[in-house]
């Protein structure tokens, strides 16, 4: 499974990077590789079954927290 993930990402890199290099888009290349790396990291985590936090839950906590801080009643 991990192998497939790596393969997929490798494919994307192979497909995207050459044109960037050819046009000397170094800045874009940096950004691209950063995001790709993050994506790869998260995907690997997911495939390894690491529990990542849920967005909605986090936002709910944040906003209710804010609401209480501001002394409003939470939605």
């Amino acid at each position: 499974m991990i192998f497939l993930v790596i393969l997929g990402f490798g494919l994307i890199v192979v497909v995207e990077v050459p044109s960037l290099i050819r046009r000397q888009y170094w800045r874009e290349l940096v950004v691209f590789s950063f995001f790709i790396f993050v994506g790869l990291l998260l995907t690997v985590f997911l495939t390894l079954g690491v529990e990542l936090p849920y967005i909605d839950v986090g936002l709910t906590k944040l906003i209710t927290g804010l609401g209480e801080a501001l002394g409003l009643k939470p939605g």
Partner: protein
Amino acid sequence: MTRSVVYVVKKKWVLLVILLLLSGCWDRKELEKLAIVTGIGIDYGEEGDDYQVSFQIARSGEVKTPGSSSQDGGGGGGGSKSVWLLKSKGATIFDAVRNATLQSSRRLFLSHNQVVIINKEVAEKGLLPVIDFLIRDHEPRLNEWLLITREQAETILSLESGLEKISALAIADLMRNYYLSSKIRAVNLHEFAGTLLAKTTENTLPIIGVVKTDQEKGMVIEETGIFKSDKLIGYLNKKETRGLLWVLGKTQDGVVVVELPGEEGKVSLEIFGAKSKISSKVSEGKIRFEIDIAEVGSLGEQTSYANLSSREKLSLLENLKAKVIVEEVEAALKKAQECKADIFGLGEYLQRQNRKEWEKVKDNWGELFPHLEVKVKVKTKIRWLGLLTKPTILEQIK
């Protein structure tokens, strides 16, 4: 530009192809690997509260149709019966459904299930635990018909229909053609569930039974069961059932038989359609309902010798018919009030028509309903006489 764009295209397809190679076909269910369930019967098992669910499965091989060109339908096993009755036990319905696959070589496919037949005991204990799976799961259809039976549900499903190869389809058609007699209260799963959510209205379901002739057994819709929330508590006979249908405005066809005073023989008047209008009045804290039923029909048959084709005779008949209808409705009302079950949905009319009053009474509607006074007014018409002006008989014979 073009080049890079096109290159993007190629890239995507490459990705897609790889994706497909990686992927199998998860949800594929081959048509010939399906056990097409047409009817479900629900009984209690012998011991305790676990269910015995019986599935009527169509043996597609046996159901010979012009479309099918493949010879002697494969796995069916030469049995001439075109359906297979499969019984399985389980703590819950879903459990039983999955346990069924211990016996069946094919995956049970519920999407084409037509009827759910539920044993009386189960109905008296409450239907909700039974129907929840049927609503929650994506496979069963919401417009499958619910029926109650005094027999074991499996016996009903094991009955042969006179005409159809698959009896469940026959039952479904019975339900669809309820209006021919207007003595069946046909309710499908969705309607039942919807009514369960209603604050005041109570459910009614048809009761199916077995009719025995000397050599063979057939099925028949006997009467209608009254529910309090999801529990079966009472019954309406055929007459009362039609009374209910009159109020619900579901009477579209059928026959009203009246006797002419002073003449022997009967006259059967065909119903061409009826509308009902329910209005609620509140005066000095008492709630009154008025049910107006407007009916149009024709002279269907006469077994008496009188010549009825005169206006006054017809209006007489109209009055007689009106009387019969009133009787039917009042009978139904009486039964409903005995059961404290507002099967007509009068409460909702109250809610729509005068909201405040409803707000007050909605919580003890069950207690209030039996003491409601309901006025029934029926207007009937006889517009057509069939193809005869007068009985085909010479006056002087009689």
